[in-house]
């Protein structure tokens, strides 16, 4: 007994970090610093078209990662939720709502939509989730395409810009990048935190074995729907940022192409960790912008499709999975070397 007490006393003696700081490593700080000084050394194009765009698409991918990685539900409707928020910002902006009401309204309505989608799709599981959410996103595309009174059919809305708050022009590259970085960073930390909360742990348990969780008294459907709701908030915020960055939104922004793009970049980066979608987004955006130097711009889809195919066939965990494989291979090699030296 005495030894056990001793051990706890030892732990107490060590410097106590708050829970949210325990996972932090030195390279996290390096990445954070690099991201902050990035726009100071990069040109406007690299700041907004590459940097901010990657962060925003990564955020929408993050909402998919939350559902797929932690919840086991691959949803193809995350861009649709984001697109709905984007459309609502444009519509409320045209109606000249005050900025805060516009934002709260857009994100919360998008979240309501996400909860509804979750409620519909959580009744089924596995492949049905993918099919139902795909059907929902294509239906939304046709709705905005055909609907004139609310969604302005195929013209959509243009000239959407962030409101001027605190006298800062948020449309300028630097402020917009920092706005995006701040918001996306908070969302990222929130997902990291969420994955360790009782809810996050229960969600991952539901992913691994829904029947056992149900018999333990957890409400499986409620956890799934709640995950859709949380992911909806993230996607909604991403949608608002996206429409501000592009300055416009039209049915093409929520078509089947961009919907699949979100899936591609999330899987490309890796579904196992929240950082995956951001890595995937950077790769995707770089390819989108620079693949045209190597091949015909028209054939970009063939290239991205082929890259996606290769990743899915050979590394189901995406680039992160490749990294993991490389690390364990290196570890094996060095272990073998050590054995040899013996």
């Amino acid at each position, binding site marked *: 007994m005495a030894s056990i007490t001793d051990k706890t006393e030892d732990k107490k003696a060590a410097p106590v970090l708050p829970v949210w700081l325990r996972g932090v490593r030195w390279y996290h700080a390096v990445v954070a610093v690099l991201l902050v000084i990035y726009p100071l050394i990069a040109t406007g194009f690299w700041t907004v078209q590459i940097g901010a765009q990657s962060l925003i698409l990564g955020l929408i991918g993050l909402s998919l990662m939350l559902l797929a990685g932690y919840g086991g539900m691959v949803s193809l409707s995350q861009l649709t939720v984001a697109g709905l928020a984007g459309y609502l910002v444009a519509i409320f902006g045209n109606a000249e709502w005050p900025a805060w009401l516009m934002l709260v309204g857009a994100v919360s309505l998008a979240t309501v939509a996400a909860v509804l989608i979750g409620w519909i799709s959580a009744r089924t599981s596995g492949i049905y989730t993918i099919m139902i959410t795909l059907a929902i996103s294509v239906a939304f595309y046709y709705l905005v395409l055909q*609907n004139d009174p609310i969604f302005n059919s195929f013209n959509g809305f243009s000239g959407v810009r962030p409101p001027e708050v605190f006298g800062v022009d948020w449309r300028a590259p630097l402020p917009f990048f920092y706005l995006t970085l701040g918001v996306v960073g908070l969302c990222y930390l929130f997902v990291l935190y969420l994955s360790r909360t009782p809810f996050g742990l229960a969600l991952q348990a539901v992913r691994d074995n829904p029947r056992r969780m149900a018999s333990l008294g957890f409400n499986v459907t409620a956890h799934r729907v709640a995950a859709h709701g949380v992911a909806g908030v993230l996607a909604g915020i991403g949608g608002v940022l996206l429409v501000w960055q592009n300055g416009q939104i039209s049915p093409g922004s929520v078509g089947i192409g961009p919907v699949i793009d979100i899936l591609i970049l999330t899987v490309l980066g890796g579904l196992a960790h929240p950082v995956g979608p951001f890595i995937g987004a950077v790769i995707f955006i770089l390819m989108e912008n620079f693949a045209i130097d190597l091949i015909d711009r028209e054939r970009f889809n063939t290239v991205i499709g082929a890259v996606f195919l290769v990743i899915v066939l050979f590394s189901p965990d995406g680039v992160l999975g490749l990294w993991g494989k490389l690390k364990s291979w290196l570890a094996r090699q060095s272990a073998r070397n050590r054995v040899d030296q013996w």
Partner: protein
Amino acid sequence: MRLFILTFLNGLTLAALYFIVASGFSLVFGLMRNVNLAHGSLYLLGGYIGFEVANSTGSWYLAVLAGFLSMAIAGILLQLLVFRYMEGQELRQTLVTIALSIILADVMLAIWSGVSYQFTPPAWLFGATPMPFINAYPTYRLFTLAAAIAIGIALWLFLNRTRIGIMIRAGVDDRGMLSASGVNVQLLFCVTFAIGAGLAGLAGVLGGSALSIAPGEDTRFLLASLIVVIVGGMGSIPGAAIGALLIGMTEQFGLAYFPTYGVVFSFLVMVVVLAIRPQGLLGRA
């Protein structure tokens, strides 16, 4: 009244096309649990290949045959090269077939560009058939309806009255047991996939004659197949028929009477069905 009957007939035609495409999708999923999200691409590719054949031979019948056969071969290739290696891994199958459909769509766009093509069906199918109330209705659309009914009956007979059909149904229920009783399941899978994919290609030519073939039709028919089988129930041919009727009618009546909200109705039908019967109308839990 006239509008009503016309809409009803249009709904039937559309339902006929949806049924042919979706029954192939449902068959493949029902037996093999293979999720083929490239099914819409098979539809479009079958249509294009059929068009090339019709263009060079001048025969519409050969085009139909080419659409079916070429996609049946494509289906066998898909099964042998892709699905055989990822049995039971639904997510991977989904992702791989999405990747394939992206590549296929882009390659088809490169070859056949963005123009829309239309077939010229044989003379006896061309023109209009006199009808009460609405004077006349395009003969070809009535033919599509008849073709869908014929295909439906043929599929039903094939699944219920032939030896292979009995094996396929046994495979739907218990694949392991079927394999243990000496049936070559891999061969059976190839046959089923060939039929399912071939039906998509056949529908490509039939649909290309009733409507037209153009980029984007792949997504449209993939979506239609998804909703139809979700509503009707996976792996059930009668379910696909009921789902197709429901969705075809909803879409056409929606378009005719509430143009701006038409698509919402098909979606609502899906939601209501899912809320009441998550496994689909005729699906087994």
